[in-house]
Each structure stands twice: as structure tokens, then as C-alpha cells.
């Protein structure tokens, strides 16, 4: 086996192991794993509708994943994706509701607003880190709560005391007749294209641009970067801003696509935190994030089908996902195993 093959095998084996252990859990708790997984599978692929919903679920995960991954590449841990996503959601909804514009302008404008809001939310921890060396993890955690409460209050103000904004204008919506018919009225929307575009953007920034070179350099060794004349602080801030922008766009997915409005949130959406897992499942690379998000999104959405199709508590899927994450993260040990097998084969 070449290294490339092994790199490919590790996640696959991890997924299989995760599903296996999940099956064992189901057995021991008196459920039928086969039915369980059939239900899961159908939940994801049963028909065009399910597939539509699955893809819809994946889009925000991709963006949240990108946000986390991008910060990581510069050596920053952005737990604030959740909050950045929330403000992005609101900004997009606000623009979508308030303005009267042709779609060609309205949608980009709303997306931009979301990105800007997220970026702003990322800017704060970035600046504090650069200026005072405050650990970004605390600040981003705090910013999450600030986002939650502020946005809930803002929703009230803009909606005149209501618990949610008006529905956004058609011209701002990412939904489309075409997709709806294609997927039999699923909530699938063009957000997935935005997400994929951002994957390319991240790849481009990191692998093709001078800025990317600097960001990575600072991420690996800020001392040497400083010696090489880079502005470390500038890069820290920049990284958080870009990361926040990705997260903000994740919010736009909900505002302009899935929901078409924003309602006061009783708690966090969880997408931001899942983004951490997605990013790290994808080894913080743009392509990897697609993989991570797809896995995550499908399992999470498909899970909805298990309670009524197989009578199995939905949590079992979270268990499986968590296990898969464990195994992927522990890829080293799987590698060792594979190489052992290799050696043996070689010997014979």
C-alpha cells in the first residue's frame, strides 16, 4: 500500500469502525442495528427529497468547517464560529427583509452583509489577541453569548416586538422553484453553491496567494515570520476576520435558504461547535472540510429517520458520529496497524 492509499483508507476504516461499534451499542440496548442503519440510509438517500434535505444540511456545515479550519491554519482556535454564524444569520435576514432590490444585487448584498457581520465578530477576538495577547478561546466563547443575546434583542427591535423577523423578500432568497421541483419540495437551496465557492476561495487564499503564505507561516512559527518581516499581528487579525466571514456566510445559509427569516434563538444552533469537528475531520484542508461536512450532514439529517422508522433514539447517531471522530483522530494507530499488515504481506 502506498501512503496515499493509506491516507485514503484511514477515514474509511474509521467510519466502518464507528458504524460497527454503533451497531454493538444498538444490539446491547435491544435494538436491531440492521433496521437502524437501513433507516439511517433511507433517511439520507431514500428519495430526491431526502437527498435535497441532506445537501441543504451540509451547506452550513461546510462554511462552519471552513471557518474553524482557516483559523486553525494560522494557529488560532476559533470557538466563536457559533456566534459569528448567528450575527451573520441576522445580518442576512435583515438585509433580505429591509431592502427592495433586484435579485442579482439583493442576494450578493445579503451575503456580503452576513460575511461582514461575521467578520466583525471575528475582528474583536483577533484585535484583542494581537493588541493585548488575550487568549482567543475565551473571547470567542464570550462573543458567542453576546451574539445570542444581542441578536435576540435586535430581532425584537426590527420586527416591532415580534419573536422573529418578517420573511425575507423573494429577491433575496436562495430557494428556487427549480430545486424545489427537482427535490419534491425539499428546502434545498443554492447555498450549497456558495459553500462550495468558499471552499475554492479558502483553497485559493491559502495555496495561491501571498497572504496565504504569510498566514500559514505565522501559524507555524510566528517568531520566524516576524524575522522574515511579516506583520504577525496583522495576520492574526486578518485570519480571524476571514474565518468570521466564512462563519457569517454559514448564517446566511439559514437566513436566505433554509428558513428565510430569523427567529429568536432559545440557545446555540450547535452548527458552530460541530464546525470544529468538521474542520478537524477534514484535517483543516478545504477539500477535507467538504468530506467532513458531508459525513456530518448526512448522518445528522438521516438520523431523523431512525426513531420512527426503527424506533431507535436519535442519539445513537450522535454516538456513531462521535466514535467516527475518535477513530479518525486516532488515525495514527490505524496507520500503524495498516503498516504492520503491509510488513507481514511483504514478508510472505
Amino acid at each position: 500500500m502506498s501512503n496515499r492509499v493509506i491516507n485514503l483508507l484511514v477515514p474509511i476504516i474509521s467510519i466502518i469502525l464507528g458504524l460497527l461499534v454503533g451497531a454493538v451499542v444498538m444490539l446491547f440496548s435491544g435494538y436491531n442495528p440492521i433496521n437502524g442503519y437501513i433507516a439511517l440510509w433511507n433517511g439520507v438517500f431514500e428519495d430526491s427529497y431526502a437527498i435535497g434535505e441532506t445537501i441543504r444540511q451540509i451547506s452550513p456545515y461546510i462554511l462552519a468547517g471552513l471557518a474553524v479550519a482557516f483559523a486553525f491554519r494560522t494557529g488560532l482556535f476559533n470557538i466563536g464560529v457559533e456566534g459569528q454564524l448567528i450575527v451573520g444569520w441576522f445580518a442576512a435576514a435583515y438585509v433580505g427583509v429591509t431592502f427592495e432590490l433586484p435579485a442579482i444585487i439583493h442576494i450578493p448584498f445579503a451575503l456580503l452583509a452576513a460575511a461582514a457581520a461575521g467578520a466583525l465578530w471575528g475582528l474583536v477576538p483577533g484585535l484583542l489577541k494581537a493588541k493585548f495577547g488575550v487568549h482567543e478561546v475565551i473571547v470567542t466563547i464570550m462573543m458567542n453569548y453576546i451574539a445570542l443575546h444581542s441578536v435576540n434583542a435586535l430581532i425584537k427591535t426590527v420586527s416591532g416586538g415580534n419573536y422573529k423577523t418578517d420573511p425575507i423578500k423573494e429577491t433575496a432568497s436562495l430557494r428556487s422553484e427549480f430545486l424545489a421541483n427537482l427535490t419534491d419540495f425539499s428546502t434545498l437551496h443554492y447555498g450549497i453553491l456558495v459553500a462550495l465557492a468558499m471552499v475554492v476561495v479558502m483553497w485559493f487564499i491559502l495555496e495561491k496567494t501571498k497572504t496565504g503564505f504569510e498566514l500559514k507561516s505565522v501559524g507555524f512559527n510566528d517568531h520566524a515570520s516576524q524575522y522574515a518581516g511579516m506583520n504577525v499581528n496583522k495576520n492574526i487579525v486578518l485570519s480571524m476576520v476571514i474565518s468570521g466571514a466564512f462563519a457569517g456566510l454559514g448564517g446566511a445559509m439559514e437566513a436566505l435558504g433554509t428558513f428565510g427569516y430569523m427567529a429568536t434563538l432559545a440557545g446555540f444552533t450547535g452548527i458552530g461547535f460541530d464546525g470544529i469537528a468538521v474542520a478537524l475531520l477534514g484535517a483543516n484542508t478545504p477539500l477535507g472540510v467538504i468530506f467532513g461536512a458531508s459525513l456530518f450532514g448526512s448522518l445528522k439529517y438521516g438520523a431523523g429517520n431512525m426513531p420512527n422508522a426503527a424506533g431507535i433514539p436519535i442519539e445513537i447517531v450522535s454516538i456513531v458520529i462521535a466514535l467516527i471522530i475518535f477513530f479518525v483522530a486516532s488515525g495514527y494507530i490505524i496507520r500503524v496497524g495498516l503498516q504492520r499488515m503491509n510488513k507481514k504481506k511483504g514478508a510472505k
Partner: protein
Amino acid sequence: GADKGKEKGTPSTSGKDKAAFSVAMVTDIGGVDDKSFNQSAWAGVEKYGKKNNLEKADGGYDYLESVGEADYNPNLNKLVRRDFDLVFGIGHMMESSVKEVAEQKPDTKFAIVDAVVESPNVASIMFKEQEGSFLAGVAAARMTKSNKIGFVGGMTLPVIERFEAGFIAGVAAVNPDIKVDIQYTEAFNKAELGKAAANRMYSSGVDIIFHAAGGTGNGVFSEAKERKKADPNAYVWVIGVDSDQYAEGKIDNNNITMTSMLKRVDIAVENVSDLANDDKFPGGKTTTYGIAEDGIALADSHGVIPDDILAEIDDYSKKIAAGEIVVPEFPAKKK
């Protein structure tokens, strides 16, 4: 479900003999067993199903749980594709989803609880929480010794504000001088905040707290129970919400739950299902359940509230039912 819908279109004597209307519901976040309106709604669906001897399955009755807001649409849709004739969306959060799916599936009948959706195939179910809260207010006002009463709200949503408005009105109706201490925690799941709010109120002399705060309310109970445990003679009470929270109030051999304001979602759901089954589906209409419709009531106080006061409360509820008293829906603008 197209043809099926039509076939139901033809009038029929109540569907006892032939297959009854199949009914299903989508829960709000919190699940079917949230000790609150989801649970209550499911009870209604089950009651309807059982009495029409239906199976918990396709063609009978069933539910889907929503883990996040994003599940509303898919869940409603799934139930439609499973050919249920009537699909309930439980909770105001589902308003837009019900509206959207109802437009996509004009042949299926929908109903939504706690919100109004104007579509011909959607029946909207609203409650007059303010009426029940009014009675709770009367009870509190009569029972308080310190003339200080508290209200702990979850998030400031229209629904919760109806609780607040009614409660204040009820208190005022008995004794305008009583001060009601109002606090919103802006969370339905932060017991520590509920507890802190209750702690503050009790410390400042409040002796009865009415909570409409879901999980945050747990904190209110914890605080009251601690005080009761520390001093069994302490005069502290909690008024529960949605379902009878007597169990939550048990501490040693005392109980600090004075009563609970019941929101009989079950009755409303069952009722709408029956109507639909008898081809009287109130599509496009908003049915509001209040005291008059038995949709709202006070729970048994297990002897805490003396009969004379109970009588007085009953008196008020009659007046409200008869429309002699109209309870305000919105709180007077605060400060």
C-alpha cells in the same frame, strides 16, 4: 394523499365505521415528552387515535420529534408523504414551516398550535394563556401574606407576555396595591438564572412566584424547595405552568407547588382532530381555546388553596368564560 383527500371531501356521518382520519404531529424542540405542551399535544393525538381504534403507525397516528428548527419542514413533509390526513405543528416556532408546507401540499390538512397561519388547509389553534394566568394571579393575590408576588418569564415572546399580562391583571383585580416583581431570564434552559431570580425575589419578601420559563423554571422550584427544607414553616410557593407541576414541588413531606396553570393542548388537538374526522375541519380559521372552551384551567391545588378562595377563583373564571371580564393580552408597556 391527493385522491384520499378528495374522497374525504364527500360528506359522511361521523367516521366510526370506516377508517378514521389519520393524524400525526411534529413536536417542537424539547421532544414529545417535555412535560409541557408537546407532551400534552401527543396525549391529545393518542386519545383521538385510541378512541377511533387506530394504530400508532402510518394510516393511524404518530409523531416526529424536531431536534432543531431546521427539522420542522422536513418533519412536516415526511408526515405528509406518509399520507397522514391531518398534520399538527406544535409551537409558534413552526409557523413559517407549516405555512410553506401547507402551500406545497394543498391536499393535506394541517393545524398549528400557538400561531396563526392563513391558508385554506391550515387550522390555527391559539390559547388564551392570559385567562388562566389571570386566575393564577387571583390565587396568588389572595394567598400572599407579604403582598409581594413574583413572575419569572423565560424569553420575552408574545406567548410568555400573555402569561405576564393575565397574571398582573388577575393580581390587580384582587388588590391593586400588590407589587408584582417581574423578571425575564431570556432563556428556557438556564436553571441557575431561574434560581437566582427566585432567590432574589424570595429574599426581597416575595412569597409566591408564577413561572413561565420551561427549564429555567426548574431553578425556581429548586430555590423554593431549599427554603422549605431549611425551614418547613417558611411561606414560599411556586405556581407551575402548562401541565400540573405538583410532582416538581415535592420536598420531604411538604410541597411548594400551590397550583399550576394548565394549557390543555391535548383537548384542543383532540377537538380539532374530531372536527376534521367529521368533515368540520376549521381550515383557514383560527380557533382560540380559553376557559370557555376548557382549553385553559387551573390545576388541582391539592388542598393548598382554601375553598372560599377557590370559590372566588371559580367565580372569576365564570365571568371570563361568559366574557364579562376580558383579560388583556399584552402587558402594559414596562417602565
